[in-house]
């Protein structure tokens, strides 16, 4: 994986030293909050409902064991002994004291990590497929491109004050596990005539105006990608609205200007900028790519895997649910669920982080991934070690076999932590998970993505959940809107609103009615919820939610 150069290391240390001085000046009264706030946000420090929150970037979701152990140390020393993995491959610490934050940032810098550009109107942490470099059927590992974009965008002088925040995601696999269509720029790596390049999507995003990204360019060769991206962001920087925060994202710029006009402007800008790229970016990309060379995958057979798989039903369920095919025989990709039934989605204790770090180091080429679905991944696990890893994860409460099932819910922190939230998300996720576990329906229901946001900003990606839940404040009471049929994959779709919202204590019964209806109408267990929804449409589910005649009242509320 990528190692910081001396320049990177110096840059991050200098930033911590600057921030340390800024914190001191804030505490001694030399800086007001108005002066300090943009400075702390540049360094990932938010003030939330009950405390400060430090958001740390995990670029393209990749960690090694030393980094994960350091996150555990930080959680124990300066926080409450856990961290929260987010839907953008960041980790958040929910309880830091202001005075301690510079020390936390120094501890991050010790392992090549930082919190830069995890907030503010700049290019944010670049996310990627969490199975990158491991998945069977991948076109190319997206992480070298993501790292190149990270280096280019970090402190990019032209892009420090964009009209609004700017999120980039990269996938190298046709399955698109990075939700590229819901990003300001989504890159899908493709090969054309043997040449590697990217299909460039622009103007996707969720939030109050959800939109699926549009194709700006079918194919941009790798050599042109950085100047092309710079042209896109430059055009947005000039055209993007600064008069209205809610209309400032590039999705609105694209919508109001039209994709063809944007394309014309981007191409003109690209022609002007391309000659200024002397080729340094390509030399850099080559050097970065070399650092992401896959490990030398040992071909040592699958050991006692078959015996364990045949003999232990718990292990079998774990393997069937939590592993995915690896590019190399004798290996699997293992997803480690941070969604034990009743737990907070994405939360991981320091002890659990150390356990995963130890397993990665001992068995899995020292690599860990963080998924935007708030789970951890051992991307390269030899099959012969699976049983040992499973036993160890079980001891640590990390062997829940629910990846991709009803309890593998992604949920934003909601009003339990977030100052912007309009309702709680976490307890809704907890209740849905424990309810379906108690009913023993999880395996029967099969693949299902429930996504919960505690406000319209949609950090929980509810619009692209097969079932999306949006928590709102309706006249001083928590109310939850349901959307159905959303999808974050290669053919991304925004879900359709089912109708009026449900009270906090009615949301689990509502989800139960939807899933009972699904079980009754599906064409056998092979037909997933999403497939069934696409076949029958929303009407039977409205009927299940609202009773007689409700199916006819589209969007009454």
């Amino acid at each position, binding site marked *: 994986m990528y190692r910081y150069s001396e320049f990177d290391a110096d840059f991050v240390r200098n930033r911590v030293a600057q921030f340390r001085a800024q914190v001191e000046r804030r505490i001694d009264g030399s800086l007001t909050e108005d002066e300090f706030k943009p400075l702390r946000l540049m360094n990932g420090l938010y003030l939330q409902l*009950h*405390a400060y929150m430090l958001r740390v970037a995990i670029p393209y979701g990749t960690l090694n064991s030393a980094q994960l152990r350091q996150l555990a140390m930080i959680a124990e020393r300066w926080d409450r002994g856990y961290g929260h993995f987010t839907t953008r491959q960041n980790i958040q610490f929910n309880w830091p004291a202001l005075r301690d934050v510079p020390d936390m940032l120094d501890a991050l810098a010790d392992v090549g990590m930082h919190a830069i550009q995890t907030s503010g109107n700049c290019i944010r942490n670049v996310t990627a497929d969490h199975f990158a470099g491991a998945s069977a059927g991948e076109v190319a590992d997206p992480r070298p491109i993501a790292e190149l974009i990270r280096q280019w965008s970090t402190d990019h002088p032209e892009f420090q004050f964009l009209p609004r925040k700017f999120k980039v995601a990269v996938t190298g696999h046709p399955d698109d596990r990075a939700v590229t269509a819901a990003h300001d720029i989504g890159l899908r790596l493709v090969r054309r005539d043997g040449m590697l390049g990217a299909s460039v999507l622009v103007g996707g995003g969720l939030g109050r105006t959800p939109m699926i990204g549009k194709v700006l360019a079918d194919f941009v060769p790798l050599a042109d990608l950085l100047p092309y991206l710079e042209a896109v962001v430059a055009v947005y920087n000039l055209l993007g609205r600064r008069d209205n925060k809610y209309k400032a994202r590039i999705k609105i710029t694209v919508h109001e200007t039209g994709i063809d006009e944007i394309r014309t402007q981007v191409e003109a800008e690209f022609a002007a900028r391309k000659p200024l790229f002397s080729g340094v970016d390509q030399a850099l990309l080559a050097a970065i790519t070399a650092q992401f060379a896959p490990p030398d995958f040992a071909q040592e057979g699958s050991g006692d895997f078959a015996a364990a798989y045949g003999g232990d039903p718990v292990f079998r369920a774990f393997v069937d649910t939590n592993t995915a095919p690896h590019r190399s025989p004798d290996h699997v990709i293992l997803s480690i669920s941070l969604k034990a039934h009743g737990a907070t989605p994405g939360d991981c204790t320091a002890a659990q982080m150390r356990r995963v770090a130890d397993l990665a180091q001992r068995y899995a080429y020292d690599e860990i991934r963080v998924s935007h679905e708030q789970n951890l991944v051992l991307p390269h696990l030899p099959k012969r070690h699976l049983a040992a890893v499973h036993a160890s994860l079980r001891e640590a409460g990390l062997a829940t076999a629910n990846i991709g099932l009803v309890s593998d819910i992604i949920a934003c922190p909601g009003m339990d932590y977030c100052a912007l939230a309009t309702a709680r998300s976490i307890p809704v996720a907890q209740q849905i998970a424990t309810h379906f576990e108690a009913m023993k329906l999880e395996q029967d229901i099969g693949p299902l993505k429930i996504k919960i946001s505690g406000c319209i900003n949609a950090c929980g990606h509810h619009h692209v959940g097969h079932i999306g839940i949006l928590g709102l404040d309706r006249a001083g009471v*928590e109310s939850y809107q349901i959307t159905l049929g959303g999808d974050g994959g290669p053919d991304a779709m925004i879900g359709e609103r089912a109708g009026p919202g449900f009270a906090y204590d009615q949301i689990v019964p509502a989800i139960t009615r939807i899933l009972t209806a699904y079980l009754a109408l599906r064409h056998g267990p092979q037909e997933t919820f999403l497939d069934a929804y696409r076949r029958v449409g929303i009407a039977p589910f409205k009927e299940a939610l609202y009773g007689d005649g409700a199916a006819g009242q589209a969007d009454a509320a």
Partner: protein
Amino acid sequence: MSAPYSPKVLTANALLEGDVVYLAPDGGWTRRHDQALLITDAATAEVHLRDAAARVHEVVGAYLADAKPGPRGPEPLHFREVFRTRGPSNYHHGKQERA
């Protein structure tokens, strides 16, 4: 005639820890909602809000939140303010663990 003023407490987050605090009757800050000063007229509220905005070395983000009198002192009205009096619902962290 204007509508009667609905009572408020003045709340903010403490600068150093980020804790939720309330303006107390003695002019200091309390962590407990039921020990907050219940403000019953708009003019007084405005004065306290301006004063809080000037106390930048103590608190961040001061605002007025609706409250009502209760047997032990002021009580919050909106659910967000109820959550702020105790902490998150998924762990016994925040104010509730010290209560």
